[in-house]
């Protein structure tokens, strides 16, 4: 029986043949995260390819979100959280970056849409840029248009950019949050169950957005919805009880997984 890591390596080999040189944006080695001594994920080794959508699936409590949140230092905000092991972004250890720089380069979209309620649509999009560094007004206008366009929201809001973000529907708010993340020009975008609070139409719009985004960004998405993983992602990682069980091309995971555990999960036998 092969371990997940070996499969990863093998997949990498296949990739190398077709693309000559594989670029990994995120690599983790022995990543272990514990909360007040209780381990949520244990010894995760994964290499995530540039310009792909990688989805993380698994039953509730398997550590998907914990894994995702460790990639941009979000655990620093949780008292009692401890992160061990190494995370590399662009071949550089995450500890060598400034924390705010990591968070800027690794954007995150959350489960529940969380636009800034006191700000209008325009200010929401530029909030991150203004924090990071000052930009000229016309530059900002351009970034707002581009970001909203990429997030698939521009047509719907271009005439009312000064309206409060709270006036938008849930799906629109989520796309606004995507635009806000895009505006700071990250390289990697983490999506933590971005559609679980949304209706099917909003969900499909966001999935469409994800598809466009991978040309420019590396995307990691945690999802409860296996159909979604199958639809949007190139690679899929299956987590179970804090371990990475299997990591391979999405097609392989859903059609001929190597692990029995994976097969049971994707065929709906449990989870």
């Amino acid at each position: 029986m092969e371990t997940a890591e070996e499969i990863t390596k093998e997949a990498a080999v296949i990739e190398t043949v077709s693309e000559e040189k594989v670029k990994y944006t995120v690599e983790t080695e022995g990543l272990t995260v514990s909360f007040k001594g209780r381990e949520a994920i244990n010894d995760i080794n994964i290499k995530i390819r540039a310009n792909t959508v990688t989805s993380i699936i698994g039953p509730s409590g398997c550590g998907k979100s914990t894994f995702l949140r460790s990639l941009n230092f979000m655990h620093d905000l949780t008292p009692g959280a401890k992160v061990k092991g190494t995370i590399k972004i662009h071949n550089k250890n995450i500890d060598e970056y400034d924390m705010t720089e990591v968070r800027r380069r690794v954007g995150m979209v959350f489960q529940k849409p969380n636009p800034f309620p006191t700000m209008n649509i325009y200010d929401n999009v530029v909030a991150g840029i203004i924090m990071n560094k000052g930009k000229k007004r016309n530059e900002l206008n351009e970034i707002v248009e581009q970001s909203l366009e990429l997030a698939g929201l521009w047509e719907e809001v271009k005439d009312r950019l000064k309206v409060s973000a709270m006036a938008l529907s849930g799906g629109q708010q989520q796309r606004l949050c995507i635009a806000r993340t895009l505006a700071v020009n990250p390289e990697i975008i983490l999506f933590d169950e971005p559609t679980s609070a949304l209706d099917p139409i909003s969900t499909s719009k966001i999935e469409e957005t994800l598809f466009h985004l991978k040309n420019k960004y590396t995307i990691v998405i945690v999802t409860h919805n296996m159909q979604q993983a199958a639809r949007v992602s190139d690679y899929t990682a299956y987590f179970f009880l804090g371990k990475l069980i299997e990591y391979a091309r999405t097609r392989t995971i859903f059609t001929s997984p190597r692990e029995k555990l994976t097969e049971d999960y994707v065929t709906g036998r449990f989870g």
Partner: protein
Amino acid sequence: MNKEITVGIKEIKARKKLSDLFFENLTLVFALMIIVLVVFIIYEMFMDSKLSREIFGFGFIFSQDWNPVKDKFGALTFVYGTLISSIIALAISLPVSIGVAVYLSELAANVFKTAISFLIEILAAIPSIVYGFWGIFVLAPFMRTTVQPFLQSTLGFLPIFQGNAVGFGLLTAGIILAIMVTPIITAITRDVLKAIPTSQREAAYALGATKWEAIKMALLNAKGGILGATVLGLGRAVGETMAVTMVIGNKAQIKASLFEPSYSMASVIANEFAEASGGLHISSLIEVGLILFAVTFIINSFARLLIYSFTRKTEAK
């Protein structure tokens, strides 16, 4: 058989209704008592100040003349003393309160948080006469020997820091008030900040915010609530009687210098009511009370409105 049962249920229903009705009306009476009380207080003050209102009219609010011997009365000096001492209080207390609240809600370790929160509640519970004593024996001498000479030597070119350093005056009253309103503003601001959902903080951090930027974001979110807290603190400062009376100097005058003794609305009522000579004097004091009531009423309504609009906005999420 069936009929009997129906009758039984009906009886129960009727009985239950009666007890419900009784309870409903009983609580209604209690609630109405509050309204009656407020209306009655306003009515009483309005009627008892009739004499003063008829003689001085609206000029009462704008006249500086307060002379019981000559039966001349005007409230401007007291309105001035109350407002200026309260504004000084807010100017000092607001930055401190926001700083403490930010520390408590965003930065402090748990043990420290509990300890400081507890001490803040204690501060709020100290009787104002105790603050007054402390003001007379500690703060006023300290102001006279240290703070006021220092301000005069550094910022003495400003008219507000000129004049005699006596220790008792507007500035001292403002500082005492600042200490008294700080717990209120701190507690409310802390609660407003705590009410901001974690998702908002995470949103800011995920965009690469530093701690300071994330806190700025939280403060921006909470601005309505903080404004409400400020206005509630202002309401407290405006109405505070004992501590102010003990340190403000009790002299009905309007002077540019903050070192000069002054007088507040609440203080003049407390000092003069017992020995008021004529009907007009009493009536004028009651009118001062009416103005004080109106000012606090407006301030409090304004604060409620702000806090209400703030909480509604966050709930909409």
